[in-house]
């Protein structure tokens, strides 16, 4: 057992810290709000050049064949500056679904690695609340030699900057994962911003044409593949939350030393010191359970899902404690857009709500607990 980064991971952390710290300043991130899709296209190309998008792509598909631990190491650095580039949607969710596809997706994987293709999962439907493993109202039906896709999807994270959607649907063979270029006919996209600056869209499919090669997986294979990709994505997001929490510790400690009240730095006050200590404990425990979840990602699906649920629960609640107290420690400045802590707060709020919130994690962690062997 070794908790220190490998040489490769150390390089990844160093290059990421350099790029992210220099480029993703508070001013830069605020400026990105004015861009049409919320993305920093130049930075994304650099991500591709540095090989970040290729980490989870198998070597035979032109990727690095890396591990989720490598991806998580990078994700913590992204989280430290609230970077909302569509890294998890493409390099984790997209790469996992494409690499696990029943029909080979070599061309798209190549385009993913170069940064040209970006992916968004379109799963949620009206009235849904984390409805995974539940039949979809969106239908894939045969039409001529091919298929058509129809249905209403909501809250497809990162769809505004994506080139392709990966859509969950009901097909004649049961559940299906279908990959659709977003400029195809029969697709209507309503895009909007989330509170952390990332973007999502509602997607309406109206007899959008689909060829059989676009069906990534069907039946129980589709369910299993989606569950695996979701668990990886949940952990990649949780890793960003851990990075965000740890950055907040530094930001708050510096602020407590600098801010003067009653003729002294407010860090001299024991009530505020104890808040910092509680944040420290929460962030430390969050990183620990992140490691536990990473150790279980390749275990059998029941063990994996349970470990992910426990980690999302612990990290979600730790993130709430840390990000809320970080605002409190900053007083009025904490609720302004001009201080980092309000950005971390919003980023962690959005992360906590993606692909299952704390309540969802509690239910999943406890549902399976009677016969658990963690």
């Amino acid at each position, binding site marked *: *057992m*070794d*908790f*220190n*980064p*490998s040489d490769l*991971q150390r390089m990844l952390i160093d290059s990421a810290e350099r790029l992210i710290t220099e480029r993703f300043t508070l001013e830069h991130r605020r400026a990105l709000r004015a861009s049409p899709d919320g993305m920093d296209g130049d930075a994304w190309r650099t991500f591709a050049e540095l090989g970040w998008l290729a980490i989870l792509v198998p070597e035979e598909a032109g990727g690095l064949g890396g591990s989720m*631990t490598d991806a998580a*190491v990078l994700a913590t650095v992204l989280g430290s500056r609230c970077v909302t580039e569509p890294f998890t949607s493409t390099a984790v969710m997209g790469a996992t679904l494409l690499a696990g596809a029943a029909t080979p997706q070599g061309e798209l994987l190549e385009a993913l690695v170069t940064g040209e293709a970006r992916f968004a999962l379109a799963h949620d439907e009206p009235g849904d609340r984390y409805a995974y493993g539940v039949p979809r109202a969106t239908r894939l039906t045969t039409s001529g030699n091919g298929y058509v896709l129809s249905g209403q999807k909501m809250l497809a994270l990162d769809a505004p900057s994506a080139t392709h959607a990966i859509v969950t649907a009901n097909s004649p063979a049961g559940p299906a994962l279908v990959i659709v270029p977003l400029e195809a006919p029969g697709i209507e996209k309503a895009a909007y911003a989330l509170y952390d600056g990332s973007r999502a869209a509602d997607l309406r499919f109206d007899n959008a044409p689909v060829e059989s090669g676009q069906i990534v997986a069907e039946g129980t294979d589709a369910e299993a593949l989606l569950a695996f990709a979701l668990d990886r994505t949940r952990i990649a997001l949780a890793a960003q939350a851990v990075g965000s929490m740890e950055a907040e*510790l530094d930001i708050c*400690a510096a602020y*407590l*030393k600098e801010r003067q009240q009653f003729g002294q730095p407010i*860090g*001299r006050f*024991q009530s*505020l*010191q*104890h808040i*910092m*200590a*509680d944040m*420290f*404990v929460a962030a*430390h*425990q*969050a990183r*620990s*359970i992140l*490691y*536990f979840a*990473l*150790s279980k990602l390749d275990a059998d699906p029941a063990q994996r899902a349970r470990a992910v*649920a*426990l*980690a999302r*629960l*612990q990290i979600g*609640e730790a993130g709430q404690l840390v990000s809320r107290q970080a605002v409190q420690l900053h007083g009025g400045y904490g609720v302004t857009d001009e201080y980092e802590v309000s950005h971390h707060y919003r980023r962690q709020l959005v992360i906590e709500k993606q692909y299952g919130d704390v309540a969802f*994690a*509690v*239910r999943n*962690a*406890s*549902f399976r*607990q*009677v016969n658990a062997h*963690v």
Partner: protein
Amino acid sequence: MDFTFDPELEDFRRMVRDAIATDLSPEMAERQRAFGGVNSNHADTIAWTGILNARGWSVPHWPVEYGGTGWSPMQLHVFNDELNAAWAPDTCWGITHMCGPVIYTFGSEAMKARFLPELRAGKYYMAQGFSEPGNGSDLARLRTSARREGDHYIVNGQKIWTSGAHASEWGFFLVRTDPDVKPQQGISFLMIKLDTPGITIRRIPEINGDADLCEVFLDNVEVPADNLVGQEGQGWTYAKFLLEHERTTSSFVYFNKREFARARHLASIETANGQPLIEAPEYAARFARIEAELIALEWSVLRELADEAFKYNRTAAASTLKIAGSRLQQAISELQVDILGTRATRYYPFEVEEREEATALWPGHIPGRTANALISRASTIYGGTLQIQRGIIAKLAFDL
């Protein structure tokens, strides 16, 4: 990073498990299960230490030259995990984790030769004389004095929270040998035999029916100067060494795992409206939260054992383990009480052998749980209160 356990550890685990199964009598395990507190009863503690010593395992974490096993930190982790899972009694922590390490690190050769064989053989129980009525968290101002007269010290003063003193042959004490220097500099570490004339021990009745905490009154007690450990005036340094030496012990992670497993068992046999409590949503959610915190704690311990490079002062990590571990002791024992419901309020004598036989109305899993939960309130008080730990983190991690 590599989060996999070395497969050879599983062989080691089986070896340890088989050895414990051979050595631990069902009666002793059952007493520990019925009792289930943080410490075990003194007689079993002494007997079990002797049994472990026969295998050379009573102080596995000590350096090999002083009777340790040379096991890796991960092997020690597995060993402790197996001991707890099998309901083995504890060893006397005052000996194995406090006084022993101070003696082999700072004591003279004569002191080592005199004490270490007895300590690892479990010849007797030992009490820790640090706190005083007026000096708890502010330990450095302790006032119990030791005045040198010829080849003796004359000790006067009063100690409190001297757990197990009534059942101990020896105590290790912090005493003030020099009143004229800075508080931290005038303190020495002194071994005192508790049957020495001038010592009075009073057991303090506790919240849970036990009376293990003690007050020790020292009235002109003559202690041979040979009983001084290390250098005069270095006692504070040795006490601080203790705190930093055993960074993971105060997590109580093995104890917490064992008691969490017990809580699960209790919630699967206790029912409400015909449904096991563990399936009731409010309990299921509580279990999930505590389990997540417990797994996080265990992996925090593993990070420490595997010597992760750490951005912050390591002692801040130790305080983190102490905070999380003590909260879990409380959360798990409170959960057990809540699972038992109103029946948890029935008073039972603290000593297992003084309790009535189990009946159909009052089965054997009821007694002991509330006693444990009541004294668990102390887990955020002893060994540096929760507030002291927070202060340590603020200072050492953030320089506040």
